């Protein structure tokens, strides 16, 4: 099977095979070039074209066929004579006019050489183009594949970008041969029958056919899946955007990841985040639809517009993230010491219920006059609201007194703001005689943004003081392996004693023979 063309030569329509057409075009171009020096070139060439048309008609008639093939063109050229023949028996051209060199140049173009392909002929094509043995190109390609696999991506991109050398002219351009009859003559020596392409090329051809045929259905199913998923994601993003913009001023900005963001940046950040996440999804949907169902090329203008919008989202996002991160530059802290009444034995627990403070009532938007006596229940595991930022040390007291030191730390753009942020920490504990309740969470006063606020608690107790520590507190405790001491008589508590060497597991101190 061959592609045929309809040409108009000498005012008659001729069906001609593609390779024959190329050869004829090259021949006629040479003839035109040759007679360009002659004043009557147009007439001569027209005469020749007319005669060629007549020869074709005769040949088709003789051979009872409808299409001019390459052998017909060859015999026509033989009969008509090549430019070389003209030169030897030239008529009417003054000898002193220097012959114009043919303007044909060996134009080299990059094509994929599917005749010598291992996969798709990219390496072979590059080899022709760079005038390097294909084996070297393949070696380099293999090397890049082994080196992180970047070669695979590059190969696929080149496969898509570089056209296949299909026609003879393209093949000659690929090899940098002159597109003249001489060039044709050299390529004629190669058999017309497709060469054996080797196993891999055939393998990939099979895969290609599969993708082209039955694979298309699978491809479409995947495309539908992508489209549905991406659409769902896009809708969710949109709902989230509307929700964030709508419920601004509500509690959400006091919860952890959002409590970082400055109030005045929030709307811009929400919109730009939506763009940054949404545009790629939208692009994915559009491109999937295009590629899978319309077979049209992806619109360049559309891609460009999408890219611009996306960059428009990225820019403020980067700007505000930089602004916000600059607010973590400096650190500040202040300390508050509270004396504890001395008892021979303390119990430390985590109090999940606690009474409302004035700040709480503001924070939770409850009538300030009415907050007293109310309790709130804090969920110990709800770390979403605030990062766990309480650390507790238990140390030996040197002056015989018991005390609790609270160290409030924070970061800010400068020392002043950092200190202000540290002052924005709301943390409390209650002492009820020998029972000390620690609040499991740090709260930020309203309108204070999260800037890495932390509370470091240091309890100092005299030597010999016994301690019962709720296991719930273990996660906050520093400086000792509190998980190892598990011999307490009370459920949910570990039992300790303060010694000269620091806090010790009471079980180990009472029963030293066990160690």
């Amino acid at each position: 099977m061959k592609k045929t063309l309809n040409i108009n030569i000498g005012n008659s329509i001729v069906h001609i095979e593609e390779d024959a057409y190329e050869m004829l075009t090259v021949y006629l171009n040479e003839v035109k070039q040759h007679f360009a020096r002659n004043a009557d070139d147009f007439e001569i060439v027209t005469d020749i074209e007319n005669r060629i048309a007549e020869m074709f008609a005769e040949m088709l008639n003789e051979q009872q066929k409808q299409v001019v093939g390459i052998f017909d063109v060859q015999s026509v050229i033989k009969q008509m004579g090549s430019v070389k023949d003209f030169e030897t028996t030239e008529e009417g051209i003054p000898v002193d006019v220097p012959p114009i060199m043919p303007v044909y140049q060996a134009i080299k173009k990059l094509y994929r050489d599917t005749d010598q392909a291992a996969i798709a002929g990219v390496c072979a094509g590059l080899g022709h183009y760079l005038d390097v043995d294909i084996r070297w190109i393949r070696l380099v390609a293999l090397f890049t594949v082994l080196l992180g696999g970047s070669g695979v991506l590059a190969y696929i991109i080149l496969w898509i970008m570089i056209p296949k050398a299909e026609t003879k002219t393209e093949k000659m351009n690929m090899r940098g041969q002159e597109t003249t009859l001489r060039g044709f003559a050299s390529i004629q020596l190669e058999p017309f029958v497709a060469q054996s392409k080797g196993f891999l090329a055939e393998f990939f051809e099979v895969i290609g056919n599969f993708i082209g045929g039955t694979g298309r259905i699978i491809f479409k199913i995947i495309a539908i899946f992508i489209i549905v998923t991406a659409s769902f994601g896009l809708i969710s993003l949109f709902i989230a955007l509307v929700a964030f913009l709508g419920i601004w001023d509500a509690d959400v900005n006091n919860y952890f990841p959002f409590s970082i963001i400055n109030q005045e940046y929030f709307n811009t950040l929400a919109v730009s985040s939506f763009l940054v996440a949404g545009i790629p999804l939208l692009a994915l949907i559009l491109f999937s639809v295009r590629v899978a169902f319309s077979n049209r090329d992806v619109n360049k203008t559309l891609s460009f517009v999408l890219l611009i919008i996306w960059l428009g989202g990225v820019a403020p996002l980067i700007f505000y993230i930089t602004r916000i991160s600059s607010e973590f530059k400096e650190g500040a802290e202040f300390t508050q010491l509270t004396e504890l009444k001395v008892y021979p034995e303390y119990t430390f627990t985590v109090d999940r219920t606690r009474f409302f403070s004035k700040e709480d009532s503001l924070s939770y938007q409850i009538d300030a006059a009415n907050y007293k006596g109310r309790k709130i229940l804090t969920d110990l595991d709800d770390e979403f609201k605030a990062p766990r930022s309480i650390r507790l040390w238990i140390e030996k007291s040197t002056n015989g007194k018991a005390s609790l030191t609270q160290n409030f730390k924070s970061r800010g753009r400068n020392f002043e703001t950092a200190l202000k942020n540290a002052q924005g920490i709301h943390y409390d504990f209650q002492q009820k005689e020998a029972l000390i309740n620690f609040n499991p969470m740090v709260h930020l006063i309203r309108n204070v943004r999260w800037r890495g606020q932390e509370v470091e608690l240091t309890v100092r107790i005299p030597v010999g003081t016994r301690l019962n520590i709720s296991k719930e507190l273990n996660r906050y405790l520093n400086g000792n392996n509190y998980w190892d001491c598990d011999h307490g008589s009370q459920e949910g508590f570990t039992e300790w004693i303060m010694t000269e060497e620091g806090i010790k597991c009471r079980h180990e101190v009472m029963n030293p023979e066990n160690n």
Partner: protein
Amino acid sequence: MIAENTQTQMRKGILEYCVLLIISKGQIYASDIIAELKSAKLLVVEGTLYPLLTRLKNNGLLSYIWVESTSGPPRKYYVLTDEGKTILGQLDHTWLELSNAIETSKNKP
């Protein structure tokens, strides 16, 4: 090289004369001219005839008429003009002279 050149020159001159002779027998189509020239072994490829015919026509020795063809588009048939006939007569004369010259050159002992 010189021999080749002389041959070419001789052929060129005679080719023109022969073309005029062939056309003088009546209106004739280019490919028929070629056929005759081929049988006379004066011409190898057709392509060289067209520039020659065009040149002779432009010099006023030839003219052509379009004749409808049974197969395909109309064909150019060439005829001699009066001037062409005159020049052909002159060429006939020249040829005789040349022929004599050659005969004389060859046969003189």
